[in-house]
């Protein structure tokens, strides 16, 4: 592999990283919002969100990406490829994250809630100061797991013509006729990305352990 090939590879890695990164951030936040809306058990909205979660979890990523990218023009919206990819990844990961948040909230201790109510905390203050800080820590392993699934599933975005870290290896080997080196390099770069996520999780957990939880 020459310098040019490495340049292409890193470009592909960057595409994978930023599209995944944006989707992860959106997905964690929107998952939290969906979980909270579902906890509020608002009629109709609750069923709607429940249906969305089942649907999003059952749809293959490639299908979802194609659907979003191709349905855009029909609805008169001109989506560029990256936006369509981010939308699809976010829709998918939000559904899984919502279930992770929801189970953490449902399992949260009733006693701590009563102590908060007894000192006159409003539900919002209780959520913000008592429940959320602890559920972030307990949900983190599952959330990071879901993040790494997203990164590993991200090659699906190549189906609408985005040249991501997997797709780019094809391009390189089409020139060099030697597919193994770029694939191995891509594998190493994926491992580096996942490693970064897991490393971040460890630091957060160590911080939590220092709090003697």
């Amino acid at each position, binding site marked *: 592999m020459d310098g040019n090939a490495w340049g292409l590879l890193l470009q592909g890695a960057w595409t994978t990283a930023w599209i995944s990164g944006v989707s992860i951030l959106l997905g964690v936040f929107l998952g939290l919002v969906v979980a909270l809306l579902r906890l509020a058990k608002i009629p109709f909205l609750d069923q709607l969100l429940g249906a969305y979660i089942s649907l999003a979890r059952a749809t293959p990523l490639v299908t979802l990406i194609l659907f979003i990218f191709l349905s855009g023009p029909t609805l008169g919206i001109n989506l560029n490829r990256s936006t369509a990819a981010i939308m699809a990844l976010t829709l998918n990961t939000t559904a899984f994250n919502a279930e992770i948040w929801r189970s953490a909230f449902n399992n949260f201790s009733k006693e*701590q809630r*009563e102590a*908060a*109510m*007894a*000192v006159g905390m409003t539900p919002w*203050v209780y959520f913000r100061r008592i429940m959320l800080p602890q559920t972030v820590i307990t949900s983190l392993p599952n959330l990071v797991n879901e993040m790494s699934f997203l990164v590993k599933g991200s090659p699906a975005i190549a189906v609408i013509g985005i040249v991501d870290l997997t797709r780019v290896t094809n391009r390189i080997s089409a020139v060099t006729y030697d597919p193994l080196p770029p694939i191995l390099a891509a594998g190493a770069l994926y491992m580096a990305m996942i490693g970064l996520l897991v490393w971040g999780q460890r630091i957060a957990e160590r911080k939590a352990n220092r709090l*003697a939880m």
Partner: protein
Amino acid sequence: MPEQPEVSIRNLSKSFDGIEVLRDVDLEVKSGEVVSILGSSGSGKSTLLRCINWLETPDRGEIRINGERIGLQDKTQKPMSRRELAKVRTQLGMVFQSFNLWPHLNVLRNVTEALIYVQGLKKSDAVERAMAFLHKVGMAEKAASYPATLSGGQKQRVAIARALAMQPKVMLFDEPTSALDPELVGEVLSVMKDLSSEGYTMIIVTHEMDFARNVSDQVVFLEKGIIIEKSAPEIFFHSPRSERVRRFLELDKVV
């Protein structure tokens, strides 16, 4: 005019799944009074205490703290908003059987959290007040520790400081020593005894007979959701009117 009671409970009734846990309970607690609520388990005594600050919603009846209604709007009889309810609750401090400290916050922050985010105190003022109350319960040296590192007795003293720091009008204790190892009961009871001599109004659900005898002004005995005896401790422990209380006290002597 007689003095307005600090807590007044009238016709309080509560059922769980069709089983009546409290039936037409009336109780008045005057300012500075210590009331012990006794009864065998399942008698409804914890439910009664939890109704006072609306952690359980009664089916019927009314509760007033210093004349102010809790739970329902006085005029419309409609439930209070959660914000209104939270405001009334700041007049009541509660101590739980299982301490219910917040494990992600250290001792100091367990006490300051509500001072800052409920009462709106400046952080420095909150810390100052919290340290004063931690000192009172003998936990000032542990201010930086996390709950997981404390003994049960220490946890309960922190929980007492957390409730006291809000400067409530009434303190509610729900079996505060029942989850403690026997050798740790004394430290918690001695803090509570100090509070009673300082004139705090206290309602205590307890199994500690000696404590009830020596510290309370009024002893209430609940049986199947009904108050069957309500008297001064001298009368309650020496010449109770009801046969049921006599049996309860005898059992206690045997054990």
